[in-house]
């Protein structure tokens, strides 16, 4: 990664093909990877010493309970080693000049006192450092040295000195064998030139001290949710043992208090933080999984489980994990002096004051924008809202007030990980739309020498054994391992290095390959997970195929774990080297085939998501086909008129349709139905039938975006359809828009929530109905201020910044009355008289209202999409919505490469969310479309046709539906689709399938080498 990009390559009138991403959390990483993978150079700036953000601190993620670090670290590593991403940590953005397309941004890099390119991250310095400091990564629950790395997997994997704590004794410099310590480092001011900027600075947690009634900071056993997350984590202070702070015992009764610093006008945060209901549920579940006798209780105002799969998760927490949910506000906490247990006082729903004892209390603290972020926004001239979040508009959810600067993640509004990731990709589409003709101008493409043909040669193996400072050499006799390697068959060269990963060693390896005609290289050092890509680069530079490389992990899995058994560790290291040699003799160079990419996109569905995707993809410079099965574009938007914020939907729709139909690169095909589909990423072929003449048309394209939308359910309850005064929300909205005077005459209005949602048939939340009910309720109040409006609800789920409209609705006199699913409201009709009866739980009395209008907030249901799903081989959820590749980190990708999804076909969502998602699919699609050729093959499964019995085992076992039986009656595996897992090879009854690079013979040779050694030592 070079420091300055050569700007002379870009012409004066052309925008700059580089983008600045501010913030290295999950949003910033996603944005950077999308940018870099689609031909832009990225400056990724983080004010922390490492990238990773808050997600790096999390133990698990909801609703799948995935390990946070496990799913995130591949992205960390990818950002760290990407040729076109320059990670600049410990840096602040000071100012910006210029205009969209050509910005000049000033950065200050704070000193780290460690050479970035010399430090190997071995950690010797921290072991010696005599000064102790508080560890912020573990939320101050543990301690670290004054020289430290934030967490084990941090990128860059480089230590830094906490200047506040360091006394300057100089010990670290003495123990650092890599000579990486540099006390003379000072602040560096740097200017960088970029075409646009993406803000992804993230959030901070609310300071729980500001709610003194909960005793945070006073009672040791009151912790925040982020502290609790660390307590649960295997890398946390107690190594995953759930122990409470006061006495280190396992707490049995744990209380979670929701909305600490959220939905609270007293502390100025009257928004909902969106994530706390789910993370508290998750933490309760995980706590229970850690310790079977834990009894978690969650004290909440409304359970906001509005996302995909959230309600099912919430129900499981109750039924399977025994998590108790109590709707109430906890008024205060007292501590029992002796036991340090906590007494919670609260008003239960029956109106009685209750006091209950707990061993640990977790405060579910909300999100707040950090002060430094707000300061930075000021420097950049970006407008903020009253809370300090970045101002955006519903139809442009990633655009800030300043052209050329875009935003994503929790700085835009509180949001969870998948929404942050989605918005990050979305921001990339917006940030690069205007830069599309600068694509590829600044991104580096690496050139390699022509590969030497080694297929006919006998193996000549070079073994490089690493000391890793003293990390290996201190416990394993490295010279002995080296000499041992020399004795092994086919080993032609051996060497040992202080640090095999250092730049000069790469040169040594290259020279050795050339001088000694090596055709296989083994490095015995650390983990291939972190270092294999780098060494592969080295041997490619030396003219070898990158697969002719093997690693022996003699550090992470040997020297570091057998520190007191040096003899045994050395023996083990020898064994590991022998295994590597055994494998290396058999590894073969693997070719990767370059396939050309059809640089065109297909979008299925012409609603807001589909049109947005089509338009933005066209703005990226690609030809787009937009298929709509109806006669006209618009989808559900045709029945919607205004947003909660008051934006005019019809005006927006008209404009959008005009831009789509008027764009020269977009072909709109209405009345069209997909009838066949084939191909793989980069080269798909789709057949459509177009009405009314039903002519067949074949479309070739490199990517496809599914935006097929959803419908409002037609209720079969509450007398719907039996009285003209009973309407769904969409029907009401149309009436308000078209017959406002008639609507103004209604004086008594009842709205029932969760009609057809969150029940046995549809166990999910329809997400938009609470906001819609409030939107239309407020509109009715506007039309007739004297109208009595009652909303019967289960949980009001006005998440994020929509919460303020809920407050507004209450202020304007709209009545909110909760009902339980076991006791739903009853609607009856007697002559012309409609009656809604329900239980008022506060008064504990049956109430009756005779409404002029009864509005049903009806569920959002998936469209008929089974046929399409089968054709495209994409999965759906039990509810019929399309299922993404990964709930958290691949929210708009299908598992099949090159296919993406957006809009309510993925699950119910708001317009702004559909727009974000649609934009996101565009930047994901560009990672394929921006390439003229893609490489396929390498580690892929190969079928030996003659042995294949066409038994279909591979077809069934493949998670990606890749194998097909071809015309010859043999299984065939498309290299472009195969992901190289090897399941088919392991199951093939005829053993006709081999997974390249992990062939049976290789694995067996490795195993044998191990057995041989065990027998020998015994």
């Amino acid at each position: 990664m070079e420091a300055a990009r050569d700007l002379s390559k870009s012409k004066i009138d052309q925008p700059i093909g580089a983008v600045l991403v501010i913030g290295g959390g999950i949003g910033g990483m996603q944005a950077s990877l999308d940018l870099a993978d689609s031909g832009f150079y990225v400056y990724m700036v983080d004010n922390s010493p490492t990238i990773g953000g808050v997600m790096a601190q999390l133990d698990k993620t909801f609703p799948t309970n995935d390990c946070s670090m496990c799913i995130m670290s591949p992205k960390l590593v990818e950002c760290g080693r990407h040729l076109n991403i320059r990670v600049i940590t410990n840096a602040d953005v000071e100012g910006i000049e210029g205009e969209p397309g050509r910005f000049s941004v000033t950065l200050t890099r704070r000193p780290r006192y460690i050479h970035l390119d010399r430090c190997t991250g071995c950690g010797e310095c921290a072991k010696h450092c005599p000064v102790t400091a508080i560890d912020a990564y573990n939320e101050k629950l543990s301690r670290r040295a004054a020289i430290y790395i934030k967490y084990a997997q941090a990128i860059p994997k480089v230590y830094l000195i906490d200047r506040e704590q360091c006394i300057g004794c100089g010990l670290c410099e003495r123990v650092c064998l890599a000579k990486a310590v540099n006390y003379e480092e000072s602040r560096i001011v740097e200017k960088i030139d970029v075409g646009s900027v993406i803000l992804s600075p993230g959030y901070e947690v609310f300071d729980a001290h500001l709610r003194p009634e909960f005793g945070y900071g006073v009672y040791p056993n009151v912790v925040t949710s982020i502290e609790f997350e660390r307590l649960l984590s295997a890398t946390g202070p107690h190594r995953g043992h759930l122990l409470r702070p006061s006495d280190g015992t396992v707490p049995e009764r744990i209380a979670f208090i929701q909305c600490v610093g959220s939905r609270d006008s007293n502390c100025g945060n009257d928004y909902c933080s969106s994530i706390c209901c789910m993370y508290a549920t998750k933490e309760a579940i995980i706590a229970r999984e850690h310790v079977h006798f834990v009894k978690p209780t969650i004290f909440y105002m409304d359970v906001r489980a509005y996302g995909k799969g959230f309600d099912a998760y919430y129900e499981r927490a109750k039924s399977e994990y025994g998590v108790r949910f109590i709707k109430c506000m906890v008024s205060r906490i007292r501590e029992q002096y002796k036991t340090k247990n906590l007494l919670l006082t609260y008003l239960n729903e029956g109106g009685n004051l209750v006091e209950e004892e707990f061993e640990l209390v977790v405060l579910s603290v909300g999100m707040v924008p950090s002060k430094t972020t707000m300061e930075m926004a000021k420097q950049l001239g970006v407008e903020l809202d009253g809370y300090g979040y970045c101002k955006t508009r519903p139809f442009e959810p990633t655009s800030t007030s300043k052209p050329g600067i875009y935003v994503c993640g929790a700085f835009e509004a509180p949001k969870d990980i998948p929404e942050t990731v989605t918005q990050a990709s979305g921001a990339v589409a917006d940030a690069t739309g205007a830069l599309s003709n600068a694509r590829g101008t600044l991104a580096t493409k690496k050139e390699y020498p022509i590969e030497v043909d080694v297929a006919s040669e006998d193996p000549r193996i070079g073994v490089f054994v690493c000391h890793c400072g003293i990390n290996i050499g201190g416990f394993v006799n490295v010279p002995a391992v080296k000499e041992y390697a020399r004795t092994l068959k086919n080993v032609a060269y051996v060497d040992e290095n202080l640090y095999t990963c250092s730049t000069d060693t790469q040169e040594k390896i290259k020279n050795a390959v050339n001088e000694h005609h090596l055709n296989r290289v083994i490095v015995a050092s650390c983990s291939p997970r972190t270092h294999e890509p780098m060494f592969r680069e080295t041997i490619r530079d030396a003219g070898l195929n990158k697969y002719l490389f093997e690693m022996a992990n003699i550090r992470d899995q040997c020297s570091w774990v057998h520190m007191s058994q040096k003899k045994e560790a050395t023996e083990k290291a020898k064994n590991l080297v022998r295994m590597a040699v055994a494998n290396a003799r058999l590894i073969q160079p693997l070719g990767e085939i370059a396939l050309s990419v059809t640089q065109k996109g297909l979008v299925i569905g012409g609603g807001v998501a589909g049109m947005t995707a089509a338009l933005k993809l066209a703005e990226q410079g690609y030809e787009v086909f937009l298929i709509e099965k109806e006669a006209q574009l618009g989808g559900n938007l045709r029945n919607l008129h205004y947003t909660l914020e008051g934006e005019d939907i019809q005006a927006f729709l008209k404009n959008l349709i005009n831009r789509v139909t008027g764009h020269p690169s977009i072909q709109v095909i209405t009345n069209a139905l997909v009838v066949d589909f084939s191909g793989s990423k980069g080269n798909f072929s789709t057949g459509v039938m177009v009405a009314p003449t039903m002519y067949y048309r074949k479309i070739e394209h490199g990517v496809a975006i599914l935006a097929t939308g959803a419908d409002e359910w037609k209720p079969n309850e509450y007398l719907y359809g039996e009285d003209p005064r009973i309407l769904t929300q969409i029907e009401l909205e149309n009436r308000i828009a078209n017959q406002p005077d008639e609507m103004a005459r209604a004086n008594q209005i009842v709205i029932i929530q969760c009609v057809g949602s969150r029940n046995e048939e549809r166990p999910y939340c329809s997400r938009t109905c609470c906001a819609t009910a409030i939107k239309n309720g407020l509109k009715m109040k506007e039309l007739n201020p004297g109208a009595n409006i009652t909303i019967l609800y289960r949980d009001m789920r006005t998440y994020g910044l929509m919460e303020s409209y809920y407050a507004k609705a209450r202020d304007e006199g709209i009545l909110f009355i909760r009902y339980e699913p076991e006791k739903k409201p009853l609607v009856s009709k007697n002559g012309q008289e409609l009656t809604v009866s329900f239980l008022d739980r506060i008064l504990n009395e049956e109430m009756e209202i005779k409404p002029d209008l009864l509005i049903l907030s009806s569920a959002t249901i998936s469209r008929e999409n089974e046929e399409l799903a089968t054709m495209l081989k994409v999965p759906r959820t039990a509810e019929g919505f399309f299922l993404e590749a990964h709930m958290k980190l691949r929210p708009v990708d299908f598992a099949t490469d090159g296919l993406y999804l957006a809009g309510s076909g993925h699950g119910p969502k708001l317009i702004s969310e559909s727009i974000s998602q649609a934009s996101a699919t565009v930047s994901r699609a560009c990672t394929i479309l921006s390439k003229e050729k893609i490489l396929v093959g390498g580690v892929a499964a190969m079928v030996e046709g003659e042995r294949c019995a066409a038994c279909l085992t591979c077809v069934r076992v493949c998670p990606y539906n890749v194998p097909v039986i071809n015309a010859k009656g043999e299984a065939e595996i498309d290299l472009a689709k195969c992901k190289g897992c090897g399941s088919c090879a392991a199951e093939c009854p005829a053993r006709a399938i081999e997974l390249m690079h992990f062939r049976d013979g290789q694995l067996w040779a490795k195993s044998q080498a191990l057995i041989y050694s065990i027998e020998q030592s015994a």
Partner: protein
Amino acid sequence: MTFEPKILSFLCNWCAYAGADLAGISRFQYPPNSRVIRVMCSGRVDPSFVPRAFLAGYDGVMILGCHPGDCHYLTGNYQAEKKIILTRKLLEMAGIGSDRLLLDWVSAGEGERFSQVIRQFVEKIRGLGPFPLDQEMKGKLHAVKASLEGEKIRWMVGKGPELMEKENVYHEQLPKERLDAAIETTIRDELIKNRIIALVESKPLPAAEISQTLNLKLNETLSFLVSLIGEGKIGFDPSEEGKIPKYIRNV
């Protein structure tokens, strides 16, 4: 039979040892309880010799060097003083007490003073009785020894004067208070950690018992346990599954 204390003495070659010789030449009598080790300079006395001596069965340790300003090696006796102050601090913190450790100055001309110093110290130790070298005390001594042998304290103490009088790596002079505070924290931390390690070495113990034995607040004990787990020196007893975890020594 009266108690005869065993005293270990370190005498510097140029002053104290010469003073002892002079006492002999002058026939100044003193009790025979002391065993002398000659060192070239009192500054050579590694502070860890002190707990080692107690562990070996000595009842008292004396270190005698040149008077301030007289050191043959210019500042060796100051170095010795610095280290002994630290050792005292550790002994106090560990609850061993530092009465049985003596640092004093005897010049080559002070034969009589030498005999007096010995006599007084022997009497003092006689009054204190034999060193109570029970299991608990051994644990404490081992912890002190490990702390004094550890690099962290040694580096800070060794480097301290330079950081204060000349400059640290950032070319600043470190204020004495800042250095003292840092050393104070580190020696305390090291000692407690080493004591915990010594405690759990013999058998798995819960946090509450460790805190009681160390006479340390429970929450503070916990933070040390957390650090030690982080350093991989101790771990959780895997056979214990109840509400109260026990800690064991990691091998």
